[in-house]
């Protein structure tokens, strides 16, 4: 906590403003459709932040994140449908299962060159999907194969994780995102964070400094998968319907990776920024061009990706930082005192 407060006061101020804006957003936005889009933006920021533990800090590229999201969603849903267990509890169970799965996959692959890990995660993602699509039922547990599961509707109920209004969903996912961002922050500023970053950049040098790189990657993988599993439950409860092709699909996994890379992987705000930019772009291009010229919206999506990677390979977090510096920090600094500008530069 101390570290957090030691941050530059202006950065803290901006973060606080942003946070405040997010909290009062529902007062301004009343349309459920718009709320839904905001919830999805935050949800994707959450997914990408969980991805970030492995994809951002450990220096490898996971492309099967949907498998862990799906495990979380399916676990809590199946437990609720069969035994009436509250999705909140199912969420934890799902997260733990996802983490276990992550460790099992990470164990052999995290030692290898990144490409193996990327391909292995794709295979796992697809493998889990194919498995789910082939299984109708396990004992009393209904998996429903390719049809997916539609969650029993209840009244507005916290314990059943079902609400009539979008508001509770909004605040729940906002809280989840904040927790993950805080976790990311503390991890970055801890031994694990330093070791992960070191192992991500130069594994050989890191090992020579006493770091068992694969072990730290494995820890990151477990955390990442656990949190992704929790997100999966939220996703299921939001949609009240889970469908293997979309919750376990490659598209979801790739979109998460895109958001991370466009926003800036390995940074705290990258995933949030990426989701904030890419989600609306993908929604809007689909809305505007999807019915006009099929495929155009995905061409635009692909082009954005190429162009951003070409000019900002570290993601859009960099230009945005510069922009914010120009717009706010300098100005605030100048107001703050005669040496304000100076201190603002040092703080970076």
């Amino acid at each position: 906590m101390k570290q957090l407060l030691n941050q530059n006061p202006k950065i803290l101020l901006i973060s606080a403003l942003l946070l405040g804006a997010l909290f009062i957003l529902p007062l301004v936005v009343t349309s459920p459709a718009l709320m839904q889009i905001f919830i999805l933006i935050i949800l994707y920021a959450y997914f990408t932040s969980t991805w970030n533990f492995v994809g951002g800090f450990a220096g490898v590229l996971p492309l099967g994140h949907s498998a862990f999201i799906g495990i979380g969603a399916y676990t809590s849903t199946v437990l609720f449908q069969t035994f009436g267990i509250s999705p909140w509890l199912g969420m934890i169970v799902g997260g733990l299962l996802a983490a276990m799965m992550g460790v099992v996959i990470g164990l052999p692959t995290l030692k290898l060159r990144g490409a193996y890990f990327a391909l292995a995660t794709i295979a796992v993602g697809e493998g889990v999907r194919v498995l789910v699509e082939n299984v109708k039922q396990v004992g009393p547990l209904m998996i429903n194969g390719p049809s997916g599961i539609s969650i029993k509707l209840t009244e507005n109920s916290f314990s059943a994780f079902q609400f009539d209004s979008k508001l509770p969903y909004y605040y729940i996912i906002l809280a989840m995102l904040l927790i993950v961002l805080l976790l990311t922050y503390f991890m970055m500023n801890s031994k694990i964070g330093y070791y992960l970053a070191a192992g991500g950049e130069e594994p050989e040098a890191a090992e020579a400094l006493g770091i068992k790189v694969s072990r730290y990657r494995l820890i990151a993988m477990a955390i990442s998968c656990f949190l992704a599993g929790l997100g999966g439950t939220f996703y299921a409860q939001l949609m009240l319907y889970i469908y293997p092709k979309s919750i376990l699909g490659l598209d979801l996994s790739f979109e998460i990776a895109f958001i991370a890379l466009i926003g800036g992987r390995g940074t705290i705000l990258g995933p949030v920024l990426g989701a904030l930019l890419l989600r609306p772009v993908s929604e809007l291009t689909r809305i505007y061009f999807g019915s006009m010229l099929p495929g155009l919206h995905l061409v635009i999506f692909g082009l954005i990706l190429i162009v951003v990677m070409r000019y900002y390979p570290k993601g859009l977090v960099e230009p945005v930082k510069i922009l914010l510096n120009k717009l706010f920090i300098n100005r605030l600094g100048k107001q703050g005192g005669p040496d304000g500008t100076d201190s603002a530069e040092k703080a970076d």
Partner: protein
Amino acid sequence: MLGIIEALINGILMGSIYGLTAVGLTLIFGVMKVINFAHGSILMVGMFAAYWFVILTGWNPYFAIPVVVPLLFWFGYYMQSFIIKPIFEAEKDVREPITVIIVTTGIWYVLDNLALMIFGAEFRVAKTSVTGQVFEFYEMYFLLPKVIGAGITMVCGIYLYWFLKHSRMGKAIRATSLDREAASLMGIKQAKIYNVAFGLGSACCGMAACVLIPFYYVYPTVGVPFDIKAFIIVVLGGLGSIPGAILGGIIVGIIENVGAQFMAATWTELLLYGVFLFVLLVKPSGLFGQKHDY
């Protein structure tokens, strides 16, 4: 029993063609250490090229090879030099150029959906003189275009192997794949090598496209199932190994075909992923992979 033999041989035939698509992927990875996610889309481009060649000329589909293969070579060559190279250079000091991987994914999206915009979503089949021709053998049937395809794969595989071992350019490619820096110190122009490698990888897709056209259909996302199969194959065979890719392809073909005789076809898909993970656990470098490569 005959059914299993028939399935086995069909598996080998189809698997070889999978292998041909995987060869290009493994070649590009071997040199650039980049997984090219646009690989399936390049195959799709090749298939549309071959399709239109056959439709417009009405000639034997294999006459498309001298047109489509060089076309795809230059397609890959310039794609690397215009789109991928600048990004690669920005990421020079990075050990695993992840942005480059993501950019190839962007290219995948763009190509597939451009094809959708231009050609529409329908499935197209080119009826050629070899389409539907079969060999009959004790009530077992083998498709002539698949047999020819498997033959072409073998020739291509052997040629590429020879090319990399003995030609001047091949040696330069191998040197670069072993050690980028050392090779560039020896005066090998890295950027050119990458262009050529990407071109060759794409040319393999062009070859596979010409082989597929007589018995397969074309549509904008035709590359996706082949893409995912190619990923599995290259890991099975060992990333960067050409014989590994072809053998990996054949293994995948056999699992699909023979496996389906004992279980539902949907479960063979799962079996495939299972075998993939098993190999990864037991011999992470794949069947032909070199240890230093991971």
